[in-house]
């Protein structure tokens, strides 16, 4: 359902491929051609796609480490403040600074914070949630979560030229090519 209303900004061109292999090859091709604003879509992560698209190493690890550290120190200082500084109480005649007994909670809070980092960090890096996206305008694109393998080159890519892209997709053996408009 391509509409050619001039007021309608072109988001990119979407092409479907038959299987993971062809998708990877396409990705490689596009990457070699020097496109940067493009993406591939598949119902499951495809081995080797990161190399094909030469994706940078994910920054998630650092986010998690940061959160973990906050959990660790935060937990320790919380307990230290409550048990030693603010209201020291003689409990079973134990020393106030009873570190061995604090380890479980410090550990748990470290894990908890790290887990938050891992999950919300991932959503943040992926710019999710993003409920509305131009690609959803395409009826075809539904297959992306079922058995469809897509590539989309976005119009904002400096090299973007509709004909070139269309040609490139045809050569790569795309089964179905459509332009995606941003409303």
């Amino acid at each position, binding site marked *: 359902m391509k509409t050619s209303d001039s007021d309608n900004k072109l988001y990119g061109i979407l092409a479907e491929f038959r299987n993971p292999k062809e998708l990877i090859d396409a990705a490689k091709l596009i990457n070699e051609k020097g496109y940067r604003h493009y993406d591939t879509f598949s119902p499951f992560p495809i081995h080797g796609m990161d190399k094909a698209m030469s994706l940078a190493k994910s920054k998630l690890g650092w986010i998690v480490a940061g959160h973990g550290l906050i959990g660790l120190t935060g937990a320790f200082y919380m307990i230290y403040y409550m048990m030693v500084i603010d*209201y020291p*109480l*003689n409990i079973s005649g134990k020393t106030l600074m009873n570190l061995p007994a604090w380890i479980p909670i410090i550990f748990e809070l470290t894990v908890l914070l790290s887990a938050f980092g891992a999950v919300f960090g991932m959503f943040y890096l992926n710019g999710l*949630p993003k*409920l*509305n996206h131009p690609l*959803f*305008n395409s009826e075809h*694109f539904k297959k992306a979560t079922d058995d469809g393998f897509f590539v989309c080159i976005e119009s904002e890519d400096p090299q973007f030229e509709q004909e070139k892209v269309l040609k490139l997709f045809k050569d790569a053996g795309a089964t179905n090519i459509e332009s995606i408009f941003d*409303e």
Partner: protein
Amino acid sequence: MAQIFPKWTNEAPRRILFGSIIFLNAIVFAVWYFFSPEFTDVGYMPEQPVPYSHQVHAGQLGMDCQYCHTQVTESKHANIPATQTCMNCHNQILTDSENLTLVRESWESGQPIEWVRVHMLPDFAYFNHSAHVSVGVGCESCHGRIDRMEVVHQAEPMSMGWCLDCHREPEKHVRPVSEITTMGYSVDNQLELGRELVAKHNINAPTYCQSCHH
């Protein structure tokens, strides 16, 4: 049209996030403030059966607290005076003021006057007046400027945290025993003087549970 959600929904998550952060903070503050004795108890000013004015007696007339609250140094209670005590003066002064009708009735009938309690500690908190006044904790420290109160109200939160403030740093609050009933007492070298007094009366204000809860 395959879009399920309109464009604006992309903004929603951020809005919800910031919204909820603000909201939660508001909640915390509300609980912290409105549920604390600071808010709930301070200023509790019940109406008393007899319009007795501390402002007049303690303030203008400058009567000493202990004239009426005689047992404060020997008992855990700072006793509410017996009708007798009122009558000591009021069988000469204002003998027919109708403010004092109840007092006179009580005096004749021997029935007590039903004063309304202002300072209520929970029953599991044990407070002993004599123990405090004898080491120089002034009436004012807990009851406020009684001498300015037409009708007595609660001046301090009387929460556990509030007690502990003083028990942890008595030197900031104690005064010479001679000054306990003084209103508006203040000295410049409180800390210095306080430390002396703490040493003098060897005050070790307890902070363990049992000293107040048993």
